[in-house]
C-alpha cells in the first residue's frame, strides 16, 4: 500500500526529512494529549513512500507505526506515544545505518512487533480550549513584541488574501501569500517555542498547501476555517500585546486550539475523497493526495530544521510567483526591499529639526549681510542650500505618509462578517488603496469608516429577495474609494442599496425631538440629521448597527481631525458618504493675520471668505453686540483684539479685515487688523501649561522663527456673545 508511487526513488535524505517532520509532530502530540493522530498518520504514510526501495525492515516498521496511529482516528494513548518515541529513535539510527551501508540496529526489545488492540479514544468536549503561555520561558519581552508586530502583518495578509480567495479561489499568487504568511508564522512560533500555535499554523499551512497544489478547492467552509485560525492568532497576539503593555496580568490565554485543528482536519479529510485534479504535470498517474512532492517538502523541512528562522529568502525561493504584480505581491516586495520600523517619536523629532533647518536656512539667506553680498558663488551656494532644504522637508514629511490600504483591507473582513450575519450578499470593491495619508489621520479614520460601512451594509443594502424584487442583482456592492482632491484626501463609501428616504428621516427627526414638525429643511439638511446624536433609522436594534450611536460619532471623529463628512443619497439607488480629510494632522494651511503686534494663524478650512467691511456695514445691538452684513445675512462679529486684550492699531472695523469663519452650521465674523498671507504651518501642541478650549488650537513656528498661535475657530465661533463683552 505504501509503495503506490515508485517514481519517487528512495533516498536516506527524503526519509530523514520525513522523520524530522514526524519528530515535530510527536513533540506536539506530547504537548496536546487529545490531538488526533491524523497528521502523524499522514506523515508515516509519506515516510513509507520515501522509504520505498529501502531495507524491508523499514516497510515493516512503518506499517507498524501506521497501525499505532490507528489511521488517524482519535488521539494517541500515552502508551502509544511512548512506543512512537522509541520507534522514532530506532528509525533515525536505522536511516543513518542504511545511508552508510551498515547493518540496521537491533529492534528495541520493549517495542512490541505485534499490533496492539486500538483503544477507543475518549470523546472530546466541543468547547475545549488550550492554554497558551503569553511569555514563554526564556524569551524576552522584546522578542515577543517583535513577534506581535510581525504577526499583525501576517494576519493582515491572511485576512486580505482570504477575501480575495473568496472571489477567485484559484488565484495562485494569493494562495501563495496566505500560505507563506502561515508558514512564516509557524516558523516564528517555533522559534519562540509556542508549540501549540506552531501546530495550528502547520495545519492551516497544510490546508493552503493542498489548495495551491490544486488538491483542495477553497470554498466557504475552508475560508471560515482559515479565518477562525487567523482569529485565534489574533487573539493570542492581542493578549500578548496587552500583557506586554501591562493592560493585563494573566500569563496565559485560553484559545480554542483543538476546535480549530479539528475544523482544519475535517476540511482536509474531505480533500481525500475529492476527485484528483487535472495535475499540471500532465501525467495520467494521480499523485497520492497526502504525499506532497518531495521538492517542496525539502524546502519546508529545511526551514523548520534551521530553527524555523523567519527567512523571507526561503519563501521567495519557493515561490517565483511573488515577482508578479498585484497588491499582495507589491506589499511583499516592499517588505523585501528593506523597510525599517521607526519609532514615531524619533520621526517627529526629525521632522521638527528639518522644519528648524528650513527656518534657519531662510534666516541666513535673508540676512542683509548675506543677501546684500555681490558674490555670485555665494548666491549659487545659497540657492542650492535652499533647494536641498525644501527637498529634505518634503522627504521628511513623506516619511509619515502611509497608504490607506491597510485600513481598507480591514473593511473587507467587516463586510464579509456582516453579510454572513445578515444573510445578504455584499461585494466590497476597493479603489485607490495606494492613496497616501499621514499615519495619524489613518488611525483616526478607521472607526468612522467602520460605522459608515456598517450603516451601508445593514441599512443600505437590501436582502437578496428585496433586491431582486426591485430589479437589481441579488448581490449588493459597497465601494470604498480614496483619492486626492485639492489639499485633501477624499474617502467615499458608496452602496447600491435602497438609499435614504428623506420623508422617513424627517419623521424620525420630529419623533426624536431633533427638529420641529413645521421646520423647513432642504433634503440635504434632512439627510444631515442622521449625524445628529441619538438618531437611528433602524426599525429594530440590530447587532450590526442601529444602536443609536454611530453616525454622530462619525461626524465628531472626523471633525476632530479637521475633516468633514457629507452624505448624498438617491432613493432606490444608493447612498454615498464622502469624507474630506487633511493629508496630515501635522501640517495645516492657514491664513496668517495680524492683530496689533501679534500674528495668528487661522485654518483655511474654516474660513469661508474675508473682506474689508464698508463703513456702516457693522451695526450695533443694544450698544454692545455687533453684527456684520455678509451677503445679506447678519453675522455676529468678534473683535479679536478685544477678545484677546491686545492693543489694536485702530478701532473702526472698516479699517480692518473681517474673516468669516464657520464651524458646522454656525458662522461668526472675526475682526483682525490685516491679512499677511496664506501659509502652510506645522502644528505644535501648546503643552500642558495651556489648557484646551481657550481659543487656541496649537502653535506654529513662523518663517521668522517666532511662535504664532493657531486659532481654534470652532471655539471662537461657538463662543457666547456674553463672554465677548466680558473680555472687551
Amino acid at each position, binding site marked *: 500500500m505504501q509503495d503506490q508511487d515508485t517514481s519517487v526513488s528512495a533516498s536516506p535524505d527524503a526519509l530523514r526529512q520525513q522523520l524530522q517532520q514526524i519528530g515535530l509532530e510527536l513533540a506536539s502530540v506530547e504537548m496536546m494529549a487529545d490531538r488526533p493522530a491524523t497528521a502523524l498518520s499522514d506523515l508515516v504514510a509519506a515516510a513509507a513512500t520515501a522509504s520505498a526501495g529501502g531495507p524491508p525492515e523499514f516497510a515493516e516498521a512503518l506499517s507498524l507505526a501506521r497501525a499505532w496511529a490507528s489511521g488517524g482516528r482519535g488521539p494517541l494513548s500515552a502508551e502509544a506515544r511512548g512506543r512512537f518515541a522509541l520507534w522514532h529513535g530506532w528509525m533515525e539510527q536505522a536511516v543513518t545505518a542504511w545511508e552508510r551501508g551498515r547493518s540496521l540496529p537491533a529492534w528495541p526489545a520493549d517495542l512490541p512487533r505485534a499490533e496492539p488492540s486500538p483503544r477507543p479514544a475518549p470523546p472530546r468536549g466541543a468547547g475545549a480550549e488550550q492554554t497558551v503561555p503569553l511569555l514563554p520561558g526564556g524569551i524576552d519581552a522584546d522578542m515577543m513584541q517583535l513577534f506581535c508586530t510581525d504577526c499583525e502583518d501576517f494576519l493582515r495578509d491572511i485576512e486580505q488574501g482570504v477575501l480575495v480567495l473568496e472571489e477567485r479561489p484559484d488565484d495562485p499568487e494569493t494562495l501563495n501569500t496566505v500560505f507563506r504568511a502561515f508558514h512564516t508564522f509557524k516558523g516564528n512560533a517555533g522559534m519562540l517555542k509556542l508549540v501549540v500555535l506552531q501546530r495550528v499554523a502547520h495545519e492551516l499551512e497544510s490546508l493552503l498547501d493542498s489548495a495551491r497544489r490544486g488538491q483542495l478547492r477553497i470554498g466557504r467552509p475552508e475560508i471560515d476555517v482559515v479565518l477562525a485560525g487567523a482569529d485565534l492568532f489574533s487573539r493570542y497576539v492581542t493578549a500578548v500585546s496587552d500583557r506586554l503593555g501591562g493592560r493585563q496580568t494573566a500569563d496565559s490565554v485560553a484559545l480554542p486550539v483543538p476546535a480549530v485543528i479539528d475544523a482544519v482536519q475535517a476540511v482536509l479529510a474531505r480533500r481525500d475523497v475529492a476527485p484528483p485534479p487535472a495535475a499540471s504535470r500532465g501525467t495520467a498517474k494521480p499523485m497520492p493526495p497526502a504525499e506532497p512532492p518531495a521538492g517542496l517538502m525539502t524546502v519546508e523541512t529545511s526551514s523548520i530544521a534551521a530553527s524555523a528562522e523567519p527567512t523571507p529568502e526561503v519563501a521567495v525561493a519557493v515561490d517565483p510567483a511573488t515577482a508578479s504584480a498585484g497588491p499582495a505581491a507589491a506589499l511583499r516586495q516592499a517588505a523585501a526591499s528593506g523597510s525599517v520600523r521607526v519609532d514615531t517619536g524619533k520621526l517627529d523629532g526629525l521632522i521638527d529639526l528639518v522644519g528648524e533647518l528650513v527656518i534657519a536656512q531662510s534666516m541666513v539667506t535673508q540676512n542683509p549681510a548675506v543677501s546684500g553680498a555681490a558674490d555670485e558663488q555665494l548666491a549659487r551656494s545659497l540657492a542650492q542650500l535652499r533647494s536641498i532644504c525644501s527637498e529634505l522637508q518634503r522627504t521628511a514629511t513623506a516619511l509619515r505618509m502611509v497608504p490607506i490600504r491597510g485600513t481598507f483591507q480591514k473593511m473587507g473582513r467587516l463586510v464579509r462578517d456582516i453579510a454572513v450575519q445578515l444573510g445578504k450578499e455584499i461585494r466590497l470593491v476597493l479603489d485607490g488603496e495606494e492613496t497616501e495619508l499621514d499615519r495619524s489621520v489613518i488611525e483616526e479614520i478607521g472607526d468612522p469608516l467602520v460605522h459608515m460601512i456598517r450603516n451601508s451594509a445593514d441599512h443600505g443594502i437590501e436582502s437578496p429577495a428585496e433586491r431582486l424584487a426591485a430589479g437589481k442583482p441579488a448581490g449588493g456592492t459597497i465601494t470604498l474609494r480614496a483619492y486626492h482632491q485639492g489639499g485633501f484626501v477624499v474617502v467615499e463609501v458608496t452602496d447600491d442599496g435602497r438609499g435614504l428616504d428623506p420623508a422617513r428621516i424627517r419623521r424620525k427627526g420630529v419623533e426624536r425631538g431633533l427638529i420641529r414638525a413645521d421646520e423647513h429643511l432642504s433634503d440635504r439638511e434632512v439627510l444631515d440629521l442622521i449625524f445628529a446624536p441619538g438618531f437611528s433609522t433602524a426599525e429594530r436594534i440590530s447587532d450590526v448597527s442601529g444602536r443609536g450611536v454611530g453616525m454622530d460619532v462619525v461626524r465628531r471623529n472626523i471633525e476632530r481631525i479637521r475633516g468633514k463628512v457629507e452624505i448624498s443619497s438617491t432613493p432606490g439607488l444608493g447612498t454615498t458618504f464622502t469624507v474630506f480629510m487633511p493629508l496630515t494632522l501635522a501640517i495645516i494651511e492657514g491664513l496668517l493675520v495680524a492683530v496689533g503686534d501679534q500674528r495668528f494663524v487661522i485654518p483655511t478650512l474654516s474660513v469661508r471668505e474675508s473682506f474689508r467691511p464698508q463703513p456702516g456695514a457693522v451695526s450695533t445691538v443694544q450698544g454692545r453686540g455687533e453684527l456684520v452684513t455678509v451677503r445679506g445675512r447678519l453675522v455676529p462679529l468678534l473683535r479679536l483684539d478685544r477678545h484677546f486684550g491686545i492693543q489694536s492699531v485702530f478701532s473702526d472695523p472698516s479699517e480692518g479685515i473681517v474673516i468669516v469663519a464657520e464651524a458646522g452650521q454656525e458662522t461668526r465674523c472675526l475682526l483682525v487688523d490685516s491679512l499677511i498671507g496664506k501659509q502652510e504651518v506645522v502644528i505644535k501642541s501648546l503643552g500642558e*501649561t495651556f489648557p484646551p478650549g481657550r*481659543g487656541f488650537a496649537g*502653535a506654529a513656528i513662523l518663517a521668522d522663527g517666532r511662535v504664532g498661535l493657531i486659532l481654534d475657530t470652532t471655539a471662537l465661533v461657538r463662543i457666547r456673545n456674553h463672554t465677548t463683552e466680558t473680555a472687551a
Partner: protein
Amino acid sequence: MTTLPTPATGPAIAAPGKYLTFTLGQESYGVPVLAVREIIRLCPITPVATMPPHVRGVINLRGKVIPLIDLRLRFGLPAAEEHDRTCIVVTQVASAAGGTRPYGVIVDGVEEVAHFTAADIEPPPDFGGAVDARFITGMAKAASGVKVLVDLDLISAAESATLELPSADKPSTVS
C-alpha cells in the same frame, strides 16, 4: 489642632546635591541641576491671551514650542526691567502624561552651580503665612548667602491646576 495649615502640605525637604542658583531681584534661588536642560538668552516671546500674568507665553526652542514662566511674578515679586543678564532657564519638569516636558522660566540672572550637603540644607521655616511656601523645599546656606530651593515640578503642576480656576468666572450662559 494647633498646627498652622500652610507648611503641613509642603513638599519634601530638598535632597543634597548640585543646584543651579539664580537671582530674582535681591533674592537668590536654587533648582536641582539635573532638572536644568539649558540656559538661553531672552528671545522673542509670543504671549498667550487669557493666561495669568506670570505665564509670559511661548517661545521657539529649536522647533519645539515651550511655555515660559516669569518666576518673579510667580513668586509675587514686582516685575522688573529686562537687562542683559536676564535669561531663560530651560528645565525639565514632570509631565502629567508621564515622562518630562520642557518648561522655561525667566530669571534675573544665573549665579553658579553649587553643591549643597545635607548639613547645608535646612527645612523651610514657618513664615506664618506671610510667604507662599508651597514650592519651597529648603533653605541652603552658602558662602554668598541663603538660597531658596524650589521645586519646579510642583510649580508647573500647580500651573495647570490654577488655570482651571479662571474658567469658573467665565459666564457660559446663552445670551
